[in-house]
């Protein structure tokens, strides 16, 4: 057991605690960024002028009428930007366009008003003339036009061509699947004010405060030390607040500088859905070869991510997709090529899983489609191809603990009573003409760490006050995932104090600098390591103080539950007493903690290395019932076994697993993101731009029976207190729902046939798939 993963006696980690803000949530008193605006006076409200074409040259921008609208204070255009006109990290994403608009709904200018009504009226009065240019809306349009941006990486291992020649079965196909809108309940929000001595204070709903700070400072042309970004909490992030908030924060800051008044930028739902990036849809082509026993011999694939107008995070999303096409399966010979399509849509961005789900979906779709042609149950085909000890990924990283896939698989088979239920399902299907049921199981293997090695570091600042109370600052942000709850538990464990002694402070860039995004499921690993480090520094100093008092060597001092004891001694000191004594002895009671993930290396040019500290595993079994009348379905039962290592906080982890699963199910079944692809005046507009037209799962999509268990004996050496990351991997357990739908659809036709299924598998998509299996060849 490593020092990092080892738990002391009576740890607070591992206990079941509710979310640290739960009481504030349920009473409506928890503050979010926009709630602060109500506490300030003189706040200006911002509203954008949105582009009305998908791609066009700006011929003229006339703001004079807007200036005449009562209550309008200022119109902001590209000319007002004192620093760099860029809201991204790639310098391809102007904050405000100078001469060309790149997507329908792109903000061209912003109007600041005394109230929102005035700002809206002002925005309506701004006149923009465009010369429409040709636009590419669909990914296939972009591919046909050879419109790509960024890198075009390749993963290559073994000799796929030779393997195909030897394979018993070779299949080829293609698959286009949709992206996903984040639909965090709290939309993008920033509130900026100019503080004392020109300091810019930005309250922002951001997963990446440091990058928000960087972009605000480069837009304003000032140093990062003049900008502070604070995040109280987010009303959901899911990756949608990793890159996307920066521009709005910069706009708010610019407005505050220009007017001297606080500026609030809050996107309403329509603005948010038409302006911000989404999960990338992909188009994939593939060829796969199997031996006689159904083992994969070779895979060749090309993944094209639908990147939208600017690069944003499309490159790392693409590379993660490529690194996850194997999912849990050993592929000895492989070649995967990737590219990012450039088209005239919102700039697609991070979304829980960050490309991983897209890569894995390609593989799960292939296996689901070809299993009948191989004469195998899809479940058996999957199992036969699991990684085993000693094998490595297509990018040459050894797969550690592959036996956990088998263990989770077996645990689900047992706990979900799969054999008995399959017999019941067969009986049901015999007796029912209009409805069919099916049960499918799929595994998940997900790599934990940022592919970009530099991001794998975290910082913390732990302050112990004279009365023994503890305030923890760390670089991670709270978006509902329970990171702060876990960090409190880590700090209480590391210091050996009760949870009630520890408080968490809002995330601020002036407390912990140069933080990484709270993303890639890494929040607990990185910040937990840093918090633990800071606590241990303080504890070591306190141990020396206590050792002096108890007359023992410092290494014999133990901290637990607010008491300090020495090995072999009956004496017991109170935590607060030792803290007080340390202060009197002029011992520093605060510490900056730091953590970097060891052992990572990644060669982006060759797409080889060990980019991940470890893999998270999980298995799900889902049972669905499908109606042939309309293709509608219900999710009857879901059983999950998921590997979270030794859980830091079981209630929080359970919430992440269930929530991720349902969100993944939404992506694969219900959430139907549409753009206007016509040649009419709305070309390029998001057609599903509201809650009334874009449907996320509601109560009716929750599984009727939902059993989640954590994998036993899952201690992880390489992470804080033996835990594992949990934010993203469970989303991909939802493949089991899609595969169950496919199998249920197959029940309506003759056996042994491949069943293609669109994604999302909406009732309409399922209906047509049933139609196809019932009327093959028509």
């Amino acid at each position, binding site marked *: 057991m490593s020092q990092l993963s080892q738990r002391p006696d009576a740890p607070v980690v591992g206990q079941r605690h*509710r*979310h640290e*803000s*739960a*009481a*504030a*949530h*349920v*009473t*409506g*008193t928890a*503050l979010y960024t926009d*709630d602060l605006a*109500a506490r300030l006076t003189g706040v200006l409200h911002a509203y954008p002028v949105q582009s009305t074409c998908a791609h066009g040259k700006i011929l003229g921008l006339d703001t004079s009428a807007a200036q005449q609208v*009562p209550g309008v204070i200022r119109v902001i255009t590209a000319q007002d930007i004192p620093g760099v006109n860029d809201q991204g990290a790639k310098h391809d994403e102007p904050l405000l366009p100078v001469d060309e608009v790149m997507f329908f709904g792109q903000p061209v200018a912003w109007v600041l*008003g005394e109230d929102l*009504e005035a700002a809206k*009226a002002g925005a309506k009065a701004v006149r923009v003339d465009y010369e429409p240019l040709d636009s590419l809306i669909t990914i296939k349009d972009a591919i046909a036009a050879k419109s790509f941006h960024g890198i075009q990486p390749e993963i290559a291992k073994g000799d796929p061509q030779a393997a195909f020649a030897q394979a018993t079965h070779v299949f080829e196909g293609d698959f286009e699947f949709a992206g996903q809108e*984040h639909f*965090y*309940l*709290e*939309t993008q929000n920033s509130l900026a004010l100019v503080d004392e001595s020109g300091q810019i204070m930005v309250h922002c709903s951001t997963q990446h405060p440091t990058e928000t700070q960087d972009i605000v400072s480069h837009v304003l042309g000032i140093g990062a030390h003049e900008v502070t970004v604070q995040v109280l909490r987010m*009303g*959901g992030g899911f990756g949608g607040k990793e890159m996307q908030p920066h521009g709005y924060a910069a706009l708010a800051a610019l407005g505050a500088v220009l007017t001297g008044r606080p500026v609030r930028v809050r996107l309403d*739902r*329509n603005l948010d859905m038409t302006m911000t990036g989404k999960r990338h849809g992909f188009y994939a082509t593939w060829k796969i070869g199997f031996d006689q026993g159904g083992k994969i011999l070779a895979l060749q694939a090309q993944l094209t991510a639908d990147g939208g107008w600017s690069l944003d995070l499309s490159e790392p999303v693409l590379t993660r997709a490529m690194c996850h096409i194997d999912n849990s399966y050993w592929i000895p010979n492989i070649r995967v090529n990737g590219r990012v399509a450039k088209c005239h849509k919102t700039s697609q961005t991070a979304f829980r899983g960050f490309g991983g789900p897209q890569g894995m979906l390609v593989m799960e779709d292939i296996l689901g489609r070809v299993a009948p042609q191989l004469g195998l149950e899809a479940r058996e085909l999957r199992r036969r191809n699991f990684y085993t000890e000693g094998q490595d990924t297509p990018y040459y990283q050894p797969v550690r603990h592959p036996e956990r896939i088998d263990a989770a698989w077996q645990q689900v088979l047992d706990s979900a009573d799969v054999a008995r239920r399959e017999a019941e399902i067969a009986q049901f299907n015999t007796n*029912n003409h*209009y*409805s069919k049921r099916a049960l499918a199981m799929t595994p998940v293997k997900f790599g934990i760490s940022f592919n970009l090695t530099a991001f794998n570091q975290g910082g913390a600042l732990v302050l112990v006050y004279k009365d023994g109370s503890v305030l923890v600052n760390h670089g991670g942000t709270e978006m*509902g995932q329970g990171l702060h709850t876990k960090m409190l538990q880590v700090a209480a464990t590391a210091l050996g104090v009760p949870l009630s002694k520890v408080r968490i402070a809002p995330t601020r860039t002036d407390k912990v600098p140069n933080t990484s995004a709270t993303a890639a499921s890494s929040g607990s690993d990185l910040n937990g390591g840093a918090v633990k480090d800071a606590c241990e520094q303080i504890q070591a100093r306190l141990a020396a103080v206590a050792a002096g008092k108890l007359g023992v060597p410092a290494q014999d001092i133990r901290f637990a539950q607010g008491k300090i004891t020495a090995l072999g001694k009956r004496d017991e000191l109170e935590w607060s007493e030792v803290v007080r004594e340390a202060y009197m002895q002029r011992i520093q009671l605060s510490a900056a903690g730091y953590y970097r993930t060891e052992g990572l290396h990644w060669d982006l040019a060759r797409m080889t290395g060990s980019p991940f500290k470890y893999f998270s595993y999980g298995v799900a079994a889902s049972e669905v019932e499908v*109606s042939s*009348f*309309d293709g*509608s379905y219900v999710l009857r039962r879901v059983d999950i076994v998921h590997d979270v290592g030794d859980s830091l906080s079981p209630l*929080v982890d359970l*919430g992440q697993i*269930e929530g*991720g699963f*349902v*969100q993944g199910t939404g992506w694969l079944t*219900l959430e139907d993101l*549409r753009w206007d692809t016509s040649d009419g005046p709305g070309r390029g507009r998001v057609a*599903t731009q*509201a*809650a*009334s037209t874009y*449907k*996320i*799962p*509601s*109560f*009716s999509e*929750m*599984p009727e029976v*939902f059993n989640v268990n954590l994998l036993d004996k899952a201690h992880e050496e390489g992470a804080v207190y033996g835990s594992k990351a949990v934010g993203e991997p469970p989303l991909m357990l939802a493949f089991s729902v899609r595969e169950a739908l496919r199998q249920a659809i197959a029940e309506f036709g003759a056996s042994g046939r491949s069943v293609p299924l669109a994604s999302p598998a909406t009732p*309409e998509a399922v*209906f*047509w798939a049933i*139609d196809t299996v019932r009327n093959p060849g028509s």
Partner: protein
Amino acid sequence: MSAEATQETKCLVTVNGTVREFDGPPHTNALDFLRGQQLIGCKEGCAEGECGACSILVARSDGEGSRWTALNACLLPAASLDGQEIITSEGLGSVADLHPVQEEMANRGGSQCGYCTPGFVCSMAAEYYRPERTGTPAVSAGDGGAHECGPNGFDLHALSGNLCRCTGYRPIRDAAYALGDPAGDDQLAARTQHRAPAPVATDIQRADTPTGALGRFRRPADLDQVLQILAAEPESVLVAGGTDWGVEVNIKGARARSVLAIDRLHELRQIHWNERYLELGSGCTLSELERKLAGKVPLLSALFGQFASRLIRNSASIGGNLGTGSPIGDTPPALLALAAELVLSSIRGNRVVALEDYFTGYRQTVREPGEMITAIRIPLPLAPLTSFQKIAKRRFDDISSVAIGYALTVADGMITEARIGLGGVAATPLRAVATEAMLEGKPWNLETIRAAAHTMGHEGTPMDDHRASADYRKAMLASSLERFYAQQLARRSGAGQEQNS
């Protein structure tokens, strides 16, 4: 007409027991009003009544008592709350003293990011205080699965208008099902023993746009006043539940010079049965009808559970659903099948129009300036065989791609009368006349059904949009008869093996 002198009157709303003053522009919704009062627990997630993050509790009279009714604050004009009592998440409990609903939600992991949580808490509290809530699950056949009750009688569909993006809902369901009964000293429970405050004759007129254009919000005291104002100012917008108008205001920036609140009008809130017909007051909300009809009109019962969400049904009136003239309203297909008639009233008097003659084009009707729908009449006796089928992406809380209402009379195995109402397949709701003709006089069996499927599939002129393709809509029409037949077969056999509703 109401007095001009009252125009400067401010609205007074009792929020969490404290009287607060509303003096904003008339179009202001309750959500913005509350947030302006620093009651920030009320959240905006969508501003169109889809997500429930702004849910609040409003005391609504019900017989001699009242019930805490959960509503979307984003759709409620703040002025409509004049004189009323409301409770927000802040008023249910405090961090130091959580309400039982809050306690269960907090302890069971019912909140993650917390943004939707205050709305969930309010919707859950409304169900917690629902007087009929008992320990026996109320599941009635043919209601489209619209009730799903826990061991404590908690109907999960009370939460169908609240969206959560974090939890996957399971812990919220567990919290709901773990609730006990209100304690003896629970003041909000005690409040339900008394009637809600009477409606106040509100009349405010203020600048309602940045350019200073005036807007006026009035709550006339009786129907006669409404008709008088309508005659003089026919462009007045009638607002009952506001679930349509609120969206226009919030999303499309609609403003009206004159808004008339009609949701509390006694004359519009009656339900009468007589020999010839059942008359429903146009101002009855869908929830009230659901409760008061209590399954006596099975086709409507099947519809209620699939009509938007509980939060919307608590606000939306049946008259409003017809008044908007939308081709995708959920009630017209059912009401067309029931051969419903509308009572249109003006100062000139009443006239009765068959619903099938009411719609004339996309959001256009025969309703004349100065006229309003005051009642809906459903002829009796009701056809014995009915089915309501709503095809949508999401099972609940969604807008239909296609909606179909069937009402059939079968005697000695023969179909003697068939009425079929359709929504979502043309610019207006319409009757499937050709299919009706094919069915009448034929035996009620699979052969007849299958023979008519093709005709049914060619009713209307469906189009492609983001909800569904035209082909899918046609296919849904075509498959619906057989589904209806299968439902009836399953119901007769009682086994319920085929549950495809």
